[in-house]
C-alpha cells in the first residue's frame, strides 16, 4: 500500500511544531470515517486488510502528532537530525545538577504542599523548555538545538510522571 509516508502530509497539515489540536482531532475523525475497518465490515478481505492498515497508520500518525514531545522528535528526524535518545545521553552539567536538585526535593517532600511546590517549579521549567523548543523548530529552524531540547524534555517528563505518582499516592 502506498500510504502517505509523512504524518503531516497524511493529515494535510503544515510541517511545523505549532499545531491546532482541535483541527488535528477533527482530521483524525474525518480520516477514520473513510478508512476505519467498521466502514468495510461487509467488504471483501483485501479491502478489510487495506482498511485495517490505513486505520493503524492514521492512529499511529495521530499519536505522534498529538504529543508535543513526539511531534518535536519527529520533526527533528524529518530534518535529518534524529534525537537518538538511546545513545546520546550527554547532557549539560547544569541541567543534570538541576535534575538532581529536583529529585532530592521530591524525595524530601513529605507533605502535599511540598510536593505541590516541586510540581510548580517543574511546570515552569517545562513551559520554558517547550517555548525554547518551539522557537528552535519553527523560528530558528535549528534542529540540533531542538534535538538537545527534546532530550532534556524527556528527562523532565519522566520526572513529571514521578511527581504525578507522588501526588496520586498522597491522594490515597
Amino acid at each position: 500500500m502506498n500510504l502517505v509516508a509523512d504524518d503531516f502530509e497524511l493529515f494535510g497539515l503544515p510541517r511545523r511544531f505549532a499545531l491546532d489540536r482541535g483541527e488535528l482531532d477533527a482530521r483524525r475523525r474525518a480520516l477514520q470515517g473513510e478508512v476505519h475497518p467498521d466502514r468495510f465490515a461487509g467488504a471483501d478481505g483485501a479491502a478489510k486488510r487495506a482498511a485495517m492498515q490505513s486505520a493503524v497508520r492514521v492512529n499511529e500518525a495521530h499519536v505522534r502528532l498529538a504529543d508535543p514531545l513526539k511531534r518535536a522528535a519527529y520533526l527533528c528526524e524529518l530534518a535529518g537530525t534524529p534525537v537518538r535518545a538511546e545513545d546520546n545521553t550527554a547532557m549539560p552539567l547544569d541541567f543534570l545538577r538541576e535534575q538532581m536538585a529536583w529529585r532530592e526535593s521530591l524525595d524530601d517532600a513529605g507533605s502535599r504542599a511540598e510536593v505541590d511546590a516541586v510540581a510548580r517549579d517543574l511546570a515552569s521549567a517545562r513551559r520554558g523548555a517547550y517555548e525554547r523548543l518551539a522557537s528552535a523548530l519553527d523560528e530558528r529552524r535549528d534542529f540540533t538545538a531542538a534535538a538537545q531540547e527534546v532530550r532534556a524534555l524527556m528527562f523532565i517528563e519522566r520526572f513529571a510522571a514521578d511527581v504525578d505518582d507522588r501526588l496520586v499516592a498522597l491522594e490515597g
Partner: protein
Amino acid sequence: MALLQISEPGASLDPHTRRHAVGIDLGTTHSLVAAVRSGVAECLPDREGEVILPSAVRYCADGTARIGREALAGAVSDPTNTIVSVKRLMGRGLADVSKAGRLAYDFVDAEHGMVRVRTAAGIKSPVEISAEILATLRQRAEDTFEADLYGAVITVPAYFDDAQRQATKDAAELAGLEVLRLISEPTAASIAYGLDNASEGLYAVYDLGGGTFDISLLRMRGGVFEVIATGGDSALGGDDIDAALADWALARAGVVAESAGDRRAAAMAARVAKEALSSVDRAVFVCTVAGTKVEQAVARADLEALAKPFVDRTIAAARKAVRDAKVDKAAIDGIVLVGGSTRMPQVRRAVHEFFGRAPLTNLDPDQVVALGAARQADALAGNHGASDLLLLDVVPLSLGIETMGGLVERIIERNSPIPTARAQSFTTFQDGQTAMSIHVVQGERDLVADCRSLARFELRGIPPMVAGAARIQVTFTIDADGLLSVEAREETSGVEASVTVKPSYGLSDEEVTRMLGEGFGHAEDDMAARALREAQVDADRLLGAIASALAVDGELLSSEERASIERAAADLRATRDSTDRAAIERSLKALSDATEAFAAERMNRGIRRALAGRRVEDL
C-alpha cells in the same frame, strides 16, 4: 447465479434485503439480545415476553442443557451442574478463579490454561457454557425475524484482556454467530445514550455489573464515539457484594455454609436482600442452610459498610481513568450509569460525590448495553440510515513482552487507539540459532509475574547466522475487536518466520473444531456439507462485496485491471455452484488476491476525500 444485492455501508439497501444484525450483551448475571427495527433499537423478548435471559446453564446427565430461568431453578438443588456467572471464568486459569474464591463448581485444570468445569454432561469449558447462552439468544432472534442472522455485535467489558475477548469471540462462533465486532460495554451504552439524546461532549460511563467494573471517558460528536481512556477491574461486581453480605449474615447467625448448594442459597438470599435495600432501609436475609432456616435483619447501613471497599475500588479506578484521559473532572458533561449494581443508592452517591455532579439515570441500566450494540450491528450490516455511526476505541491494558530477568518491555501503551500495530526488532544470541520464543503479557506492572500472560510465540525458520546478525522484525497488531495477532519476518533474508501461538488461557484450534462438531443445535449436520455451504456463503459475500466496490470506485481501475478482477470473479461464480470445496476456496483466494491493489487505491481515495475541503495550511 445472480449477484447478491449487497451495498456498501453508507449506501441504502432495498428494504426487502434489510440484513438482520443483532447486538448481544453477554452479561455475568443477565444476557440480552437487541436489534434495530423500523429505525428503533429494542430488546427482543422470548416467548414469555421476557427480554432478560439469566446467564445460567444447567447440565443434565442425559447430556442436554437447560438455559436461563429454567436453569436457575436448579441453582441451589444442583449447584455443581448449574453454572452461573460463567463470564467470570472466561479466559481465566484455575489460579485466577481460586483467588476469586468459593465458587461452587468442580473445577478441572486444563492443559491450555483456561479452567474447565466437570458437570453431569461432561467436562465443559467456559467458552462452551457461554456458547449455550449465545445460541439461545441467536435462536430467539431467528424466531423473531423468521430468518437467519447476518451477524452480531457482542459486547465485552472494556477492561477485558485479550484472552477474555478471544474466549468471548470463540463462544460466539461456537454458537453459530458471525461476529461483526466485539465492542466495549461502556462504549455500547454511550451509543444508545448519545444517539437517543443527541448528546455532544465529554461523557463518563460508569458500568458496575454482576462481575465486572468498567469506567470509560469518551467524546461524542456527530455520531463519532471516541474513547479517550478506559479503566476498571474485570473481577469486581455485584457478586462480590452479595458474597460479603452472605458471609456477614451467616456469621451473625452463627451458621456455616459448607455445601455448594448452601453457599449458592446464601449468595442468592444476599442478592435479594441487597436489591430490596435499594428502595427500603431494612430487609431480611432469609435462607436455609444445612436444613436450618436463617433469618437475619439487614439495615441499609450494614450493607453499605460491607459494600464500601468495593465501591471505593471503583472510584479509585475512575480517578485513574480521569487522570489517564488528562481531562479536568469539571469538563465532563455527563455521567452515564450502566449495570444493575448502579441501582444501589450508595453507588449513585459515590459517583455523584466523585464527579461533582448527579449521574444520568433516565435509562434502563440493564438494557442500554444491548441497545447500543444493536445500533452498531445495524451500522456494520450496512443498513440504511445507520452509516454515520463510528466508534473509535482504545486498548484497555498495555501490551508488553518478557525481557531478561523477568522484566516487561512495554510495546503498546494502554489507551492507545485501536486498531494499532507496533513493530519490534529482535536478534539471535547464539550462532546458528533458528528459533526463538517471545512471551507476550498484558498489564501495567514492571514484572512479568505481576502481569497476565497472554501467549508464548515460537518463531521458527530463522536462517542460521552468527549471533546478533539476524534482525527479526516482529509486528504486534491489535485489531478493531481489541484482539492481538503477531507476524514475524527476518529482515536480512526476507524469510517469513512461522509463528506458533500458545495462548496461555485460550482454546486450541483443535478444541474449537471438536466443540463445533459436538453441536449447539446442528449436531446432525454433516461437517463436510457444512464446510461446503460455508465456502459458498463466503463466495457469495465476496462476489457481492466486490460488485459493490466496483460500482462505487470502479473508475480507479484501468481497463486491464478491471478485466483481471472480472475474470477472477467469473471463475468464482463458475466454481461456486460446484460441490468442490477446495476449488471454491482456490477461486476465492484468486479473486481476493486480484483485488489487493484496488483495495489500496480505494483507501487512498478515502484519505483524499477526508481532507478535501479542509484547508491545507501553507508550509
